[in-house]
């Protein structure tokens, strides 16, 4: 009896664990690729354009581009948990922060020959711009009580125009090839730099969650704002803080995005990336209505989504049709995370384990 119980509890714990769905999705994708074409997993060492030895292969692509998404998923998870809504202006604010960075780097010239300012200064400016955008969204949501999706619709609509305006609609090119390291490779290191940036972000947020009460306060505010206030928490400040942190994540993503091309294309840079970030939060099993959250599940889910995107490209799905395939995933996801289905899965596990016991 107790053995069955243990098994039951194990199954229950497994199904209700937030990492369950992303891991299952990851395994599923891996298996599909394994059967379709095992070379999907091949990683080769080659030389890139600059003549540096680098790793290449589908898996490396997933790690490279999944990292951008993972960084954004961190901020999006916090915003979702605190405000019970999502920020849809992420792509547009990446354009703004990226444009500001370019402006500082190129000093307003279209084809500069030298950097007008050190990269670190440009990055800090981008951080401030990103945080200001977050502050703007946060104030609308927390103080003026506007629905997050509506509040962020403003920057979603206006963001790319603002970005173009910052550089007088020019497309300046950063002259220093070293700037390309952030979105590419550092000479001598065969792993994409984005992976290290993502790891750094993950370590920082882990430390913040460990050393402060950000996690507890955010969850409390997301679950019961009134009660949180009566316990001395300032819900307005916590919500704004979540948006500002997302703003920082946006600035980091902007650095990577701009670095990849050494320039910017206002209308397509990071297009629709907010939807993937929101999808990562959902796939990570976090309630989109706010409250309890698990950042690691979101981060893992971000890589899973990139895995899916890359797999679809491998299957030669055109980029226009990509969204339709992703929609199928969203539907499955929503169905599987619905409480009724989860309960059914749990009870299935119960039957399964008890049958085995009888046998």
């Amino acid at each position, binding site marked *: 009896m107790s053995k069955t119980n243990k098994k039951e509890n194990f199954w229950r714990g497994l199904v209700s664990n937030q990492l369950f769905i992303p891991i299952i999705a990851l395994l599923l994708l891996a298996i599909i690729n394994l059967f379709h074409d095992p070379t999907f997993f091949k990683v080769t060492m080659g030389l890139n354009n600059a003549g540096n030895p680098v790793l290449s292969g589908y898996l490396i692509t997933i790690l490279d581009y999944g990292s951008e998404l993972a960084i954004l998923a961190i901020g999006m998870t916090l915003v979702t948990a605190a405000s019970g809504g999502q920020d849809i202006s992420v792509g547009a604010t990446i354009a703004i922060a990226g444009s500001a960075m370019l402006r500082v780097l190129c000093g307003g010239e279209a084809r500069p020959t030298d950097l007008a300012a050190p990269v670190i200064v440009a990055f800090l400016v981008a951080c401030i711009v990103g945080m200001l955008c977050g502050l703007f969204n946060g104030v609308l949501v927390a103080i003026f009580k506007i629905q997050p999706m509506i509040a962020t619709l403003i920057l979603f609509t206006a963001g790319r125009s603002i970005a173009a305006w910052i550089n007088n609609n020019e497309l300046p090119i950063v002259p220093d090839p070293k700037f390309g390291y952030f979105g590419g490779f550092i000479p001598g290191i065969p792993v994409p730099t984005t992976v290290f940036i993502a790891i750094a972000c993950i370590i920082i947020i882990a430390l913040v969650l*460990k050393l402060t*009460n950000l996690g507890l306060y955010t969850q409390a505010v997301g679950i019961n704002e009134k009660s949180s206030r009566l316990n001395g928490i300032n819900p307005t400040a916590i919500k704004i803080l979540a948006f500002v942190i997302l703003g920082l994540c946006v600035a980091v993503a902007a650095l990577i995005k701009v670095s990849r091309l050494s320039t910017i294309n206002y209308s397509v840079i990071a297009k629709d990336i907010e939807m993937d970030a929101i999808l990562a939060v959902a796939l990570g099993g976090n309630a989109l209505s706010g409250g309890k959250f698990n950042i690691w599940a979101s981060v893992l889910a971000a890589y899973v989504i990139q895995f899916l995107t890359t797999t679809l490209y491998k299957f030669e799905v055109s980029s226009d049709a990509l969204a339709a395939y992703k929609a199928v995933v969203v539907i499955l996801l929503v169905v599987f995370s619905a409480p009724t289905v989860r309960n059914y899965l749990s009870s299935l596990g119960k039957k399964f384990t008890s049958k085995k016991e009888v046998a």
Partner: protein
Amino acid sequence: MKDNRVLEMRGICKSFPGVRALANVDFSLNEGEIHALMGENGAGKSTLIKVLTGVYTKDEGTISLKGKGEVQIHSPQDAQRSGISTVYQEITLCPNLTVAENMYIGRTEGAFTNWKKMNEDADRILKSLDIPASATQQLASCSIAVQQMVAIARAVDMDCKVLILDEPTSSLDAQEVQKLFGLMRDLKARGVGIIFVTHFLDQVYEVCDKITVLRDGQLVGEFEIKDLPRVQLVAKMLGKEMDDLSDIKGEHETYSGADAGETIFEAENLQSDAGIEPFDFYIKKGEVNGFIGLLGSGRSESVRAIFGADRILSGKVKVHGKEVKIQKPLDAMKNGIAYLPEDRKIDGIIGDLSVRENIILALQVLTGFFKPFSKAEQYKFADEYIKKLNIKTASADTPIKSLSGGNQQKVILARWLLMHPEYLILDEPTRGIDVGTKVDIQKLVLELASEGMSVTFISSETDEMLRTCSRLIVLRDRKIVGELSEDDLSQNKIMKTIAGGDSENE
């Protein structure tokens, strides 16, 4: 089955992971009978009701209905079709629709509605049940009591044989309760069997014919009301003989430290935006005082102003004789003031968080954003208070929302006690919880006071106030109208002060 029996439940069992909620419970209901279902929180009342109404599926046992024999109830719709209707504590109708729409929602056949006929039918039923509402009136414009009656009218019209009233009186005032009872008696005369779940003993003895008592998921017994005096009912619910309800005040000594009698909190002309007249207030060390008055007289608003829970408009506040600013809850907490709010669900619990996180929350906020407790410290705090207050929970990691009402309240109490406040405000700490926990909380209040804590206690039950408080501040229409202490502390005197019966009426 006997001829006049409308419902018979036999050997009902229901388990949840780790908990046996119902073990072999029998329950039967006759035609034209008002049957009280009593028990402490967690005794299994709600589970039994939910099994009967198809919200939960029973593990074992049978349910039989008159004329139908054994039935399987898998959903609330099944229950409704079998003639079992439920009216819950919280109104589950749509306030923005009319009374008639609410009565017929989901029951019209076909795609078209004959509005005229619907309104006429509704009016006829309302009239026959003597409910003071008209069919075309918007439901929100009726008082809570009338809304409840409309819910009952809806149930009755669906030809129900079994009507379940789940704590229908907890948000009604005395007059409204009487109206509701009138309606219940009326239905009884028509042969409807009514299951009445309540925490108010007075009400049970006023309208019920029979009582079924549950304890820890088991049936204690079914009794005729005349065979079971009040004290014995309480004893059966608690599973022990009751001497607790006697004078508990005498058992506790008053605080006698060196600083006894010092005024620790003082307010002058305090006013918040919640609509109370500016008031003066003070409390001494080790004192238990209370705000008393009818529902809506401004009791909660007053203590919320003290804690800074509403926006403060004016007033001077002194703590230990020193003037301080209390504009928001955190200010009050920093000055050693704790506040257990009236509405546990809305203002108290953080539902999805664990018992542990709920307990440490206030102290954690007070300690600071950058100084989180380690997991070990958190467990130490939580386990200490789970033991101290005898909180029934599977573990410290259980989400608080899965606890029973009384235990949730204890967790919130633990949250504030952990802060070791100098001044504790308890706003209706005993509302909607079982007798045993009520007595526990009252005793705890007196114990804390004897150790030097000052406590302001608010309760709708005058008995409770008399048993715990040494000074009562009487409110009427959002204004302080009197203060009673020592010999003036009697039911009579309180009633008179609340009603405004001045000396000329005596």
